[in-house]
Structure formats: C-alpha cells, structure tokens
C-alpha cells in the first residue's frame, strides 16, 4: 500500500457496462470523501474485446492511475490472465467460478486472495440479466473495502437516473445481493485496504471533457458544432445534454469541415463558438483554421489527441499532435495553443481560451488527449466568482456613429482592430480569406501584405505579456526537473511523490502555453536546473524539439512512450532513479 486508500479495477468483455460500473464505484468512493482517479481502457469496438475501469481512491489527492491493483474484479477469465501480475501483495480477486477456471497454481498463490462469488447466480436471483453481474460485483467490492451500502445504492440511483424503474431497482438489488453475500460469508476480514469512514468532504467527479464543456458554458459559448470522434465525442454529448438548460445551439454537423466553418460563421455573427475533434478531424479542419486566422474571427477548437497516424489506435492515448496543431494550415499566423494538464486546468483554461481568442481575434486551440479527456478525477467545486468574460474590442453603435469610416482591419499599435457584427448599421464589412486591406477589400499589394502580416503578428507581442508564466511544481531546488505538457502532469506528480519517498527531490516544469511559447522563463528555469528530463507520450519528443527551437536549449534526457498508453508513475520514478545512478 503506497498510501491510505485503494486501487480497484474491474475488467470484462466490452459491451457489458464496465465503464458505467467503474464510474459507479468511483463516484461512491468520491461520496465517501476520498480523492478519486478513474481510468478507463477499451478497444475500438462495441462488443467483445477487453474493457477495464480502474479506480484509484485515496485519502490524499490522487493525480493519476497507478500500476498496482489492490482489488481486481474479474468478470471473465481473460481479466485474470491480463491483470494478475498487477496485483499488489495480498491483493484480492473477485470472480465467479462459473466463468473463470483458475489453475491450481493460481489458486494456491498465498500472495493473492481469491473471493469466489456466484456473481451470475446472484444477479439472476435478484431478477436481473447478465449485465447486472457487474452490480453484484460492485456490491461485493463495497462490502470488502468497507463502503457504506446506502451510499452505493444512492449512486446507482443517480447514475441510472432516467432509466426504467426495473433497471434502477434491479441494479440496486443486485448490488445488495453482492454486498450481503460478502458480509454473510464473513469473507474479506483479512483484506487489507479499507476506506476510512470518517471522511466527509464531498467533491465533484468529472472528466477533462466535462470540465472543458463546463468551462465553455461558463465562458458564454452559445454555439457548438462537432462531428463525433473519440476521444472528443463526450464534449459533444455533454454540450448537447445542456442545450435547453443554457439556451445553446449544438449542431452535430455533416463532417469536421462543416463543424469548423459553422463555428466560424457563428462567431462572425457575434456568438462565442467552439468545435472539438481529434487529429483526424483536425486534419479536415486545417483550412478552416486558416480562414479564422485570416479573417481574424475568434474561435476555440479542442483537439483531443489519440495515437496516429491515420485512424491509429482510436481509443488509446498519445501526445503526437503537438507539432501538428502548432503548424496546421498554410501560411504563417498566430494561434494560441493551450494544453491543460488536469480537470481543473481544463475548466479555467477553456474560459481563458475564449477570452484570449476574442481579445486577440485569433484562433485558440485547447490540446487534450484521451487520458485527460476521458479519465475521471475528483476536484473541488470550481470557483466562478472571479471569472471575467472579456469580449475584446467589439465596438458599439455609438462609437461607430462617431467614426467617419469604419475599418474592420484597421492597423493599430496593438494589432487588434475594432470588430463589429452583422446588424450594426455603420459596421458593414466583408471578411475574406484572401489577403485584404484595412477595409477588408482583397488586395495583393506588397506593402499592404507586409503590413497586414505584421499587424496580425503584433497581437502576439501583446498577448505574450498576459500569458501566465510556467511555474515549477514541487521544490524550487531539485535534483531533477521533469518537463511535461498536458496529461502527463498527473503521473509525473504521482512520480514526484514516489521519488520523495526515495529521498529524491524532483520538480515539474509543466508547460501549458505552447503558443505563444514562454521562451524566456523556460530558458531561465532550464539554465539553472541541475538535471532535466523531458517526459512525453510520443515518439519524437515534440516538446523537446519545440524547446530547442524556441530557446536553443537541447534537453538531452528524454523519457518517451508511444505504445498508446499513459505513463505509470512508478515507471517514471524508476527511470529517474536509475538514470540518476548511471549518471
């Protein structure tokens, strides 16, 4: 046991509600006052294949999934075969002898505790179908780790809210069966990890995509258009579910080209608009991205990465699109690229993306990945009282009256031009993807071209000043400074905790703003750091190359992973330790 709490994993065949079951367990732990991280892994198919959901629930804050499992719920034999080696010493397996035949060798292992429960039989006895074996298993898990049953049954009721009464009641009954069975048999007294009863604090449990959606709604995003693509789809689902409550228009468009162009049209008409996709969809959006840039139409685009090239590993995670989003579309133009590292970041940075995008009339890209988009994490309720909505230089009709001649692309000291929206009497103009003069007329004049390029880039000189500087997480002076971006923040923070236990002081330079790149502060930190390791979920160390390009500093030590899976904290810890010894 690393710290007080539990690492629980459920595995089984795809199509049997593993994710919902896992989420129910995660939410119950959260309601019990624990910090929770919920991580799901699944293949790109709807039936068959192996799904898992892992809940790491701890007394102190937990930032990522972990490699070890204390309690494994195996809904089929494959789960045992695939995950038995992840079990912690004296970890347990809940399984049904009906569908899992265990070798004697496994049965006789004294480092593992087997809890054989007639899951299916109990489900059937409670009138349920096969899918309810999951609920029996969470009931049994709850009993084993000391979760309160009422809490669990409330969560089941909430999660299945809106479903038929039989579904809700059937699942609660099934869970009750599992719970009582475990209690009656007196099983599990020797099982170590238990959830303390005294915690009261409640937190939200949500994914990065939920936090982005919440941030967008808070920011006043009224128009959302998208085409389904894992792992961005759940933003579409969330926004669509909130359409009526917040008076949004959510459009499932015919493709990503339409999605981005619809969002551009809505923004042009004066509405905060967003679209989201993954790399493949973003490829189709490239031309639209340039249109937003050239017409200086604000736009927020979420790109949630999955491994490429092409369809790649559709439901897995990777950070392979950094260079792509930084450079997508023809020509040079400024764009914001912001990579939140956790759910809290997802919320606040989304709001910031809207403000920056409108203030500087530039596209803003939020760069996530599957791990951040789809993993659940507990967090305090977002603090909304200090949030500011800054719509930038939108000029009102009175000011327009005073203006002799309105120029939408007026050359100004900041590069930011006054903006009008259709229906403003004196603000008429035509936006164009062609190079244009201050009025908006197409122009190929060389002097105008140069001035316009400079004007658009001048905005970034000013934007740089208001972009928060990257900060070091952890001790200021450390033996090793890890550099990361995006979702690796979680595992790296966990690794820092492990390293500390081993007596190694490590800190993290998390780079959130990738464009404009905070080169001065990054250079300063790197120059004084004792040892620097860049940690990235991609093949070619895309951030390290960006750092080189921006600061001239080469980060030699790189820990890279590109198997479609997130880093485990323990592996980062080992890498840092071992390399220390070698060094």
């Amino acid at each position: 046991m690393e710290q007080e709490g539990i690492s629980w994993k459920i595995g089984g065949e795809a199509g049997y509600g593993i994710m919902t079951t896992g989420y129910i367990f995660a939410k119950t732990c959260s309601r019990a006052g624990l910090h929770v991280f919920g991580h799901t892994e699944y293949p790109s198919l709807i039936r068959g294949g192996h799904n898992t959901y892992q809940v790491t629930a701890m007394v102190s804050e937990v930032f990522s999934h972990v490699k070890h499992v204390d309690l494994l719920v195996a809904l089929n034999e494959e789960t045992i075969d695939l995950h038995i080696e992840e079990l912690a010493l004296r970890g347990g397996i809940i399984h049904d002898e009906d569908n899992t035949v265990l070798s004697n060798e496994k049965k006789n292992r004294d480092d593992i505790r087997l809890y054989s429960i007639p899951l299916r039989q109990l489900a059937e006895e409670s009138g349920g179908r096969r899918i309810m074996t999951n609920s029996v298993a969470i009931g049994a898990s709850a009993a084993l780790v000391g979760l309160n049953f009422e809490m669990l049954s409330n969560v089941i009721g909430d999660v299945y809210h809106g479903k038929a009464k039989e579904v809700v009641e059937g699942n609660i009954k099934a869970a009750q069966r599992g719970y009582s069975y475990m209690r009656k048999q007196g099983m599990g007294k020797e099982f170590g990890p238990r959830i303390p009863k005294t915690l009261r604090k409640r937190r939200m449990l949500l994914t990065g995509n939920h936090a982005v959606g919440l941030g967008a709604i808070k920011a006043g995003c009224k128009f959302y258009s998208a085409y389904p693509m894992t792992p961005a789809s759940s933003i579409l689902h969330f926004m669509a579910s909130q359409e009526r409550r917040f008076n949004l228009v959510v459009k499932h468009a015919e493709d990503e080209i339409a999605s981005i162009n619809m969002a551009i049209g809505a923004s042009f008409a004066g509405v905060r608009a967003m679209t989201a996709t993954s790399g493949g969809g973003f490829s189709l959006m490239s031309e639209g991205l340039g249109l937003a840039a050239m017409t200086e139409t604000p736009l927020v685009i979420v790109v949630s990465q999955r491994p490429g090239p092409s369809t790649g590993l559709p439901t897995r995670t990777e950070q392979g699109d950094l260079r792509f989003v930084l450079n997508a579309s023809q020509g040079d133009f400024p764009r914001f690229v912001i990579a939140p590292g956790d759910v809290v970041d997802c919320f606040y940075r989304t709001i910031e993306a809207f403000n920056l995008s409108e203030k500087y009339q530039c596209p803003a890209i939020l760069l996530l990945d599957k791990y951040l988009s789809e993993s659940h994490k507990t967090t305090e309720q977002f603090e909304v009282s200090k949030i500011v909505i800054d719509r930038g230089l939108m000029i009102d009709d009175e000011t327009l009256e005073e203006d002799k001649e309105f120029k939408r692309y007026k050359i100004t000291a900041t590069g930011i031009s006054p903006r009008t929206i259709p229906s403003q009497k004196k603000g008429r103009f035509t936006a164009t993807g062609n190079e244009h003069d201050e009025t908006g007329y197409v122009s190929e004049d060389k002097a105008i071209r140069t001035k316009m390029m400079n004007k658009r880039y001048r905005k970034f000189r000013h934007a740089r000043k208001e972009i928060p500087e990257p900060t070091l997480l952890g001790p200021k002076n450390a033996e090793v400074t890890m550099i990361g971006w995006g979702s690796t923040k979680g595992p790296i923070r966990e690794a820092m905790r492990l390293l500390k236990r081993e007596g190694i002081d490590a800190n993290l330079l998390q780079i959130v703003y990738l464009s404009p790149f905070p080169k001065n502060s990054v250079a300063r930190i790197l120059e004084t750091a004792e040892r620097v390791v860049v940690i990235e979920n991609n093949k070619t160390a895309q951030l390290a190359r960006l750092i080189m390009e921006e600061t001239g500093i080469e980060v030699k030590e790189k820990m890279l992973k590109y198997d479609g899976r997130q880093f485990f904290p323990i592996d980062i810890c080992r890498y840092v330790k071992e390399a220390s010894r070698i060094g």
Partner: protein
Amino acid sequence: MVDLADLTTIEQPNWCPGCGNFPIWHALKSAIIELGIDPFNVTIFSGIGCSSKMPHWINTYGFHTIHGRPLPVATGARLANTDLTVVAVGGDGDGYGIGIGHFIHAMRRNLNITYLVTNNQVYGLTTGQTSPTSDRGFSSKSTPTGVIEVPINPIALAIASNATYISRGFSKELNHLTQLIVDGIRHEGFALIDVLQPCVTFNRKNTYKWFSERIYKLEDTNHDITSKQAAFQKSLEWNNHIPIGIFYEETRPTYENELPQIAETPLAKQEIQDIDITSVMAEFF
C-alpha cells in the same frame, strides 16, 4: 428604405466584360431593394471562384470564405442570429463539386438561407477546367479529350434532397432572376436558385446564345410547383429545351423554428456575462 446608393461599394467588380455574373449581381441588389431589407441586416456568404467575389461589391455584411464552404459558414451565422437575412453565393465548382456534401445537408436541414449558384459549367477562376455540371464530352484543359462523366443535375438532386424552394434563373433574364431571388428570400426555408451564368471567357459552348435558343419559362406552362413528380420530370429537360423559373416549392418547418432555445432571443443577443453553472456542477457531486 434602402436604395441602390446604399448598396454601392467603393470598389467595382473585376469580372471579365460580359461575364454572366454582372446581371446576377444586379439582380441580387434589386431584390434587396425590392424587399426593403436594411443592408446591415443582410449577410452574403460566398466560397471561392469568380462569382464568390460578389460580397465585396454589395454594401451589406459579407463573408468571402473558402472554396466550397459558404453554406456551413452561413449555417453557423444563421443559427447565431435568426434576425439576419442570410444569402449564400458560389460557383458550380464550389457548390456542386467540392461543397456538394454541405449542399445536400443544407437542403435537408432547411434553414432559412437563400443559395445562389452561379452555374457556368466551368471552373472560371482557375482558368476554365471542367466542372461537375459540364456537359458530357465538354473538353477543357483538364479534360482535353472530353468529359466522360455525366453532369450533376442540381435541380433533380435538390428535389431528392428535400429542398423546399427550387428554381433556376438565367443571367440574361434580369427581371425574372430578380423575382426568383425575391421569392427565394421570402421563402421560409432553404431556397436554391441555380443560375445559368455564361462564362464568356472559358465556356464557348454554353453561351448566352446557346441558352437563349433553348430556355423557356415554367410559369408560361401549366407546371404544378407543388408536385415533386412534375418538378422531377422538368428537371430532366436539358439540351433542346431548358426550363427556368420555379420547379418546386413547399412549406416545411425550418430548422431554426424547431429550436426553443432561440425562439425568444437569437444567440447573438443572449447575455453571457454571468451564466450560473451551479446546477450542472451539482450533478457531478
């Protein structure tokens, strides 16, 4: 009230002299004047091509987008502000080639958008290559031995895609075309106006003369514009007799009318300064 001076821009069109886009440009302005819509409440979206430059030369709001995408951009704007009159303009390459997917979806969606396709059966701006509506056998730089495919039939496609207003105009019939645009803008829902637009520089086959010898007006016949079957029959006529006028019109609820979230206030006019998200956050506990 709006007059021609109000719609006039500093810049003037740079189309080839005699280009079939000039009358379309005039007709669109005349239609706006006839309808008496304030020009600041009109937005004209276009793609890329000769005709797509049109928004620059009409003093309304305009958005000269990218090749094939005027309809999605117009869709977003229309959904954002239902008080706007939304017009889209583009070539046949733009709308029936690269943008054909959006075209079909826009028709089944039935937003209140008037779409003018300046159909010159060539790619004008890129120097006259074959377009999706070029007649079979048409030879050009991209098909020196003649087009092998049969052309897209936009009218038939529109009927099959459930467009609610489908018409065809001809550049030389200015008043007739103006009336079609007026009807199209008045129509509640998506209106397609396919305009036979001679390209005097690159299309030596489908010329003013060629069309003048063949066209006739549907309103001069007993064509029933409420009948899909009749419209489809008419849509198949080409070569010898070419009908212009309204092929089909029906009333169907528009997409935007199905959205209670904008029934009272268009998105663009909704207050966003202090949106209270407490109730959604509560659901995550």
